[in-house]
């Protein structure tokens, strides 16, 4: 099953990141770093109440401050054409309306932009912003999910869409739960979490002409941002340009156009200068979404020998009052195990907060945390090894769709992970392993993330010097997209990666979906592959049809390609190079653009990546501190394009999972509807000292069905299940089941 390529020793064979040098030498330009002449600086004024009306906005003093160019608010906004004209009597937005920035005097959440101050320097803008006085008429707000749980409802957007996957789901007879020989039932909670990439969100908005807008923005969705702004400002799509060549992490926070982007764009329109706006860290908690707080109830029934007989999974998450953010929270429960009787319910509660959004492993990470914790609880109830219990209930085909998996190596992941981890050394009883004063716990969990794929285009251009430029309007939030695409292009064209330049991050490039849901390699990678394949075919055609070619009239079936050279398989000396073909045909370059789309394979197969995490924790019984001591993770994600960047992805996912399990929590004071942990001193992401040795392995999966590249995507699955594995290890160490993340010392003491 494994090839030598997957040996950890051979990691050096992986192509280095093509942009690594630029990044570590500081030459990579991030959104806020573009130098534009005459640039002005914007600072947001944000609401201090969670719900109500702005009754007065006094900017007189601010407008007299030195260097001030404008104070823009609902009072004087140049307006967003798509919002329509400002109403005389403002009405609260109907569900499904993105926040209309500076449109009216309504406040939907604390931290909402109510004005933007523009000045010639950042310091002056900041100072002037502190002088803007806003008066409010407060209305009672609701921000507490638990206190409002009785309002939980099936999302309206699900009710409207009969094909939605979030409808109530019953398979078989979920009531079988009541008669199960062994049954566990538990409620799990995850708090609101924030993505908090190191690079805060920032953009420069530049109206190059009254109807021409250019944005340098930190966004994961370049074409989506372009389309969104074109619609908002009623501009022809080609009049809006979006650039995001480098992104300092995003994890989902850059997945849509947020209010601050509209604020900067409006400001630039007003002052007729390029305007730069960078969010300070504290505004990262109210401006770019969050993982929704979610309460989940899991019940599992099983026979005495550990066959699952029924699972019910109910999830309730928060959303804003103006938009419904839905995610895949309960979906994994339908397919991760072979269980005849399954019930899932998904509900939302509208609260006076900003709209949540996807955050790494969206939905699955939340649902699988609960499911894999519950499976662990069941293992103890049954006195069966948790890994053995999972093996006994392995789903050999997709039990929801009744389709075969396009490929699945979960069993291999279990086996390889367990072997490298030394799972057999685990003793069954909680609190039975010790090292010195520390309680030792071994925990594991499965992971899964569905394969997704979108339409994508790519262009490949062979130049006279033999170099190939490959282009697509995708972005790279960190996984190494440029590197992977370079490798796919090089492998397809049979040339050295050194001859490839991959361009991304610009809306003028061929259409690509956003970098979301682990779809980039499967979508854009496929487009790159088919474009390069088409380019190669064109070259082959020219090689056998140009009269001067050494291969004139040869049968393409008799030809091979290596190192940018086409030759007769039987007689390699008879050959022609790509560049010679161009020259002979008087072509300055050769260009193809291709689109790649998912097809009928989606009706025949169910497609998903699977994996397993194994974790050792040490718990200090005196202080309640948990330290993750080592992690072994193994995933089957189809073809691994670049082992080094893939391992980095896995390691990053584990680090995110450690944060989710042990440290990350956004706490809101519901009296004010404001986050009280809105900085890095209080919102704890793991630091180096929290991150132990992590060994990441992959199963070499050959999947001819998923897409032309054969890759399933890795960014999301890397974090799914990690928090459950850690929570399970903590239980094994201590005998305490902490069902509300994060597991901080106060909960264990």
């Amino acid at each position, binding site marked *: 099953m494994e090839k030598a390529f997957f040996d950890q020793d051979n990691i050096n064979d992986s192509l280095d990141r093509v942009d690594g040098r630029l990044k570590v030498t500081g030459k990579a330009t991030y959104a806020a770093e573009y130098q534009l002449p005459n640039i002005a600086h914007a600072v947001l004024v944000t609401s201090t109440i969670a719900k109500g009306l702005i009754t007065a906005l006094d900017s007189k003093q601010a407008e007299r401050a030195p260097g001030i160019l404008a104070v823009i608010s609902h009072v004087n906004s140049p307006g967003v054409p798509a919002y329509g004209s400002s109403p005389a009597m403002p009405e609260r937005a109907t569900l499904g309306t993105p926040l209309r920035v500076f449109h009216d005097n309504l406040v939907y959440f604390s931290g909402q932009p109510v004005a933007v101050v523009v000045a010639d320097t950042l310091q002056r803008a900041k100072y002037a912003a502190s002088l803007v006085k806003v008066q409010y008429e407060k209305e009672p707000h609701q921000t507490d999910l638990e206190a409002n749980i009785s309002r939980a409802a099936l999302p309206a957007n699900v009710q409207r869409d009969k094909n939605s996957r979030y409808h109530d789901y019953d398979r078989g007879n979920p009531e079988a739960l009541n008669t199960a020989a062994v049954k566990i039932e538990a409620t799990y909670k995850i708090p609101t979490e924030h993505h908090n990439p190191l690079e805060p969100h920032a953009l420069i908005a530049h109206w190059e002409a009254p109807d021409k807008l250019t944005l340098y923005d930190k966004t994961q969705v370049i074409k989506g941002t372009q389309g969104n702004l074109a619609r908002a400002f009623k501009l022809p799509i080609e009049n809006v340009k979006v650039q995001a060549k480098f992104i300092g992490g995003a994890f989902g926070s850059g997945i849509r156009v947020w209010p601050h982007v509209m604020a900067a764009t409006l400001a630039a329109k007003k002052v007729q200068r390029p305007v730069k706006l960078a969010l300070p860290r504290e505004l990262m908690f109210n401006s770019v979404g969050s993982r929704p707080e979610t309460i989940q109830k899991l019940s599992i029934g099983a026979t005495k020998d550990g066959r699952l007989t029924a699972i019910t999974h109910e999830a309730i998450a928060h959303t804003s009052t103006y938009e419904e953010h839905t995610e895949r929270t309960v979906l994994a429960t339908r397919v991760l195990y072979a269980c005849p009787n399954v019930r899932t319910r998904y509900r939302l509660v509208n609260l006076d907060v900003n709209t949540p959004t996807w955050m790494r492993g969206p939905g699955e990470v939340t649902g699988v945390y609960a499911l894999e914790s519950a499976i662990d609880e069941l293992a103890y109830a049954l006195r069966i090894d948790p890994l053995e219990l999972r093996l006994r209930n392995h789903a050999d085909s997709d039990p929801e769709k009744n389709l075969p998996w396009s490929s699945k190596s979960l069993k291999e992941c279990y086996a390889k992970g367990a072997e490298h981890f030394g799972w057999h050394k685990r003793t069954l009883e909680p609190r039975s392993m010790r090292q010195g004063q520390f309680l030792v716990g071994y925990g594991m969990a499965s992971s899964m993330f569905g394969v997704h794929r979108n339409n994508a285009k790519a262009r490949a251009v062979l130049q006279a010097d033999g170099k190939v430029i490959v282009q697509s309007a995708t972005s790279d939030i960190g996984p190494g997209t440029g590197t992977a695409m370079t490798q796919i292009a090089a492998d397809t064209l049979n040339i050295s990666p050194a001859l490839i330049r991959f361009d991304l991050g610009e809306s003028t490039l061929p259409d690509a979906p956003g970098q979301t849901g682990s779809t980039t390699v499967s979508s854009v990678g496929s487009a790159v592959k088919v474009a390069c394949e088409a380019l190669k075919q064109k070259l082959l055609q020219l090689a056998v049809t140009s009269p001067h070619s050494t291969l004139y009239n040869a049968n393409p079936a008799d030809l091979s390609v290596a190192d940018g050279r086409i030759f007769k398989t039987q007689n390699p000396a008879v050959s022609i190079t790509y560049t010679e073909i161009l020259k002979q045909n008087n072509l300055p370059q050769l260009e193809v653009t291709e689109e790649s789309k998912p097809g009928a394979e989606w009706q025949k197969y169910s497609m998903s990546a699977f994996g397993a995490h194994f974790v050792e924790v040490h718990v200090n019984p005196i*202080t309640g501190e948990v330290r993750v001591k080592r992690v072994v993770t193994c995933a089957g994600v189809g073809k691994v394009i670049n082992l080094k960047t893939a391992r980095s992805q896995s390691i990053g996912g584990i680090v995110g999972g450690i944060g989710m399990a042990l440290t990350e929590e956004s706490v809101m004071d519901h009296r004010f509807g*404001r986050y009280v942990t809105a900085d890095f001193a209080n919102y704890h992401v793991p630091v180096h000292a*929290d991150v132990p040795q992590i060994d990441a392995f992959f199963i070499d999966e050959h999947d001819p069905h998923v897409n032309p590249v054969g890759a399933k995507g890795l960014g999301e699955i890397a974090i799914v299940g990690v928090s459950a594995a850690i929570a399970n290890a903590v239980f094994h160490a201590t005998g305490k089941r902490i069902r509300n993340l994060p597991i901080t010392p*106060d909960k264990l003491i």
Partner: protein
Amino acid sequence: MNQFQYVQPTKQKAAIEALVKNANAQFIAGGTNLLDLMKHGIVAPEKLVDINKLPLKKISHENSSLRIGALALNSEVADNKLVLAKQPLLAQALNAGASGQLRNMATMGGNILQRTRCPYFYDIALPCNKREPGSGCSALAGFNRMHAIFGYSDKCIAVHPSDMSVALAALDVTVVVAGPQGERQILFTDLHRLPGDQPEKDTTLTRGELILDIIIPDTPFAQQVHYLKVRDRASYAFALVSVAAALATQNNIITAARLAMGGVAHKPWRLSETEKSLVGKPVSEKTFQEAAEIAMRGAQAFTHNAYKLKLAPNILVEALKTAAGIA
């Protein structure tokens, strides 16, 4: 951020005068705390008096005391051979605080005078008596997981966040300050105050007083020491609770003890009663358990910090055991 003036006097007298002349002037040392407070709009000095040019960096040992200049950097002090030899507890506490980068900027004086990390103090949209006297204490009925269990008032339940100061509180330290009226010495334990009715006042320093040195006397309890800090992640987080423990023993009998706790009060919380109770007792887990009970007398928790009632005595015992070498 306000416009402000900036001066960098080279003479102590000029620095002090600058503060006397302008009621809105403030000293700045490493700036790691003050600049954050300015950026958040919590303080808005009209004038910054940068004291980094004053000759206050010296670390020396004379007259049976370690003397450390107020401008010595946290990292320099933590690595200093004299400090490591004479007062290892101080080095331990320093290294438990902040991060390497911050310790390279932070000074002794600044560390002592750093302000609370109460989230309500930091959010200028919310009431806070310490920031805006009379506006109310939001933490009292709010998110108070990090807050005090000792010595608070109904005006303020914030804690002092410094690790280093917890060690200093235990070590019988004296602080040398200079002000418009000349020099004076203050016992370290008298420097910080409890909130009472004036939570806006962190210390007993008067306007214009500049910390020059801290003096740590040689004592018999300087070598059997331990600083134990519990935080929400392995490094780079403020203490949930911390304990500085120092012991002197003879034939397994405790002859002197010093104890202070961090993360539990508006000031580093010295445990004098507990110290007294330890003297004459044998080194044993039981002795330390009894001490912990005494230490916790009078502790009272709020909605989110009841865990401190258990965590504090636990780590007090653990710190004492480690200091005594029986952990």
